[in-house]
């Protein structure tokens, strides 16, 4: 069981949290891993807080259950920090990766007393510069894969290019690589 990694993506409706959890899982599949990836099903609306999950394991597993205790939490939108319990259910020593423009030290204030490792990436800035729009979902995965290599960066890029054909795929690839190098 220890080989299973549970990733929760916290975002807002319309930011691509569901797409991100799906593409992370698809990247794992092309590496021969096993997955169960799904959104938290509720009344989704643009801008409302949403969560999406990817359960990934190199070994087959049979459990079909929602993720309550993630190993990793990825936060697509820093405005969620005051609104929702980002660290809710996070396993002790778990990882939080946040799209955050400020300093890492100030991000850590949000998680005082939480047994976790905190990382940040200026996802929105990278998205604006590389994509021209505020869609940092794939960028956050680039950052994630630098912190924990649950799938290979090249696998993620492959599925990203399949999903987003042409110039959008190229731009996302560049943004993913940049996030991979800039996460702190």
């Amino acid at each position, binding site marked *: 069981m220890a080989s299973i990694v549970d990733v929760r993506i916290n975002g807002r409706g319309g930011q691509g949290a569901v797409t991100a959890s799906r593409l992370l899982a698809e990247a794992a599949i092309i590496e*021969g891993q096993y997955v169960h990836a799904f959104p938290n099903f509720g009344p989704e609306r643009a801008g409302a807080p949403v969560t999406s999950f990817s359960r990934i394991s190199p070994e087959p597993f049979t459990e079909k259950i929602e993720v309550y205790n993630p190993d990793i939490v990825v936060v697509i939108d820093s405005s969620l920090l005051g609104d929702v319990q980002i660290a809710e259910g996070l396993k002790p020593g778990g990882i939080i990766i946040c799209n955050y423009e400020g300093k890492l030290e100030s991000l850590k204030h949000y998680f005082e007393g939480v047994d976790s490792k905190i990382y940040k990436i200026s996802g929105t800035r990278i998205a604006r510069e590389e994509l021209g729009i505020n869609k940092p979902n794939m960028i956050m995965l680039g950052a994630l894969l630098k912190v924990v290599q649950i799938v290979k960066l090249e696998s993620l890029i492959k599925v990203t290019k399949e999903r987003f054909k042409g110039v959008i795929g190229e731009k996302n690839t560049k943004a993913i690589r940049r996030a991979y190098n800039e996460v702190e």
Partner: protein
Amino acid sequence: MIEPIVKGMTGDEAVAWAAKQINPDVIAAYPITPQTIIVERFSDYVNDGLVDTSYIPVESEHSAMSACVGASATGARVFTATASAGLALMYEILYVASGMRLPIVLAVANRAFSAPINIHGECTDQMVCRDASWISLFGESAQEAYDETIMSFKIGENPEVMLPTMFGIEGFIVTHALERVDTLPDKTVKEFLGDRRVIPACCTFNPFAVGTFGSLVLQDNYMELKRQQEEAMQKAYHVTKNVMAEFSEISGRDYEIIEKYNLEDADYAFVSYGATAGNAKAVVDRLREKGEKVGSLKIRLYRPYPVSDIYEALKGIKAVSILDRSATFGSPATIAQNDLAAALYGKKDVPTLHGYINGLGGRVLLLPEIEQVYEQSKKYHEEGKALTQDWIGYRR
């Protein structure tokens, strides 16, 4: 075994992909909540010219199944999908399909009934159709959803059977969740199924051949025709076994009408169907690590009910916990427990049976709760209780 083509697909997408490979002659469906992504994806395939299927968008599920009946009676290979209230609205025509011996295949995204309004996973919708003379299968995963789509046609279309088949996958946790699916090449699927074999002689589009379907049959012959359906159902048991064995060979995946997990030396067991069985197996692993002698039995073929297989699998076990993700009210036992009790009654060395209604309307039954179920059943057994029924995982 044929080398698989690995894909990432949701349960719904896996069914749609299998249907695309099968390329049925007709699909009729009503596209409203709660429909499934199955027919939505399939409509893309039709639009993109990837299939030859006639896609009939109708005005209700009652009409969807009626259109399927008409199409199947002409000898066409027919597929449709629905869920929850949609299946309930089909109910009248389910009996027409089976009574006319039409091997329609129906994918069910198992979801709760209203009221209150709910669109989430539970299997009551399919369970209440168990007496409709449809072959009934449950799938645990997107992989089984894909595989059962293909097998269902082969079972129902067998000349010895000629009955419609439904298979269910649970709403959201299977239908909308992405998993790895090992698919077969198009050619393999086509070869496995072949063409539909029995086509009524009067339905070959020969203007001189005329026949009547679904005609009036009263006290004189009605019961004989119903008895033929029962005999077909008995044959479906053997045909399903054979089809699964054949499919196991080409796919390399081990298919049986029931799935036995760690039952050989078990004192206790879980019995379940659908996605719940995956969780039961995970709990079996946990309990085995603690030294508990426990196993899991998954019922894949629910109708015809595999009486002797289940008896052989559970013989000698002390107590069984039935994880039943279906609702029944004022019943002597839970739905799956009722069938299991009847299958084992009066036989030797049978377990005590403890039914647990759970997971209604998408409620999640956590793995620790399944462990509690196990402890509770052990306790009931020690207290000498042979048949108990509980609801679990709700606020009191």
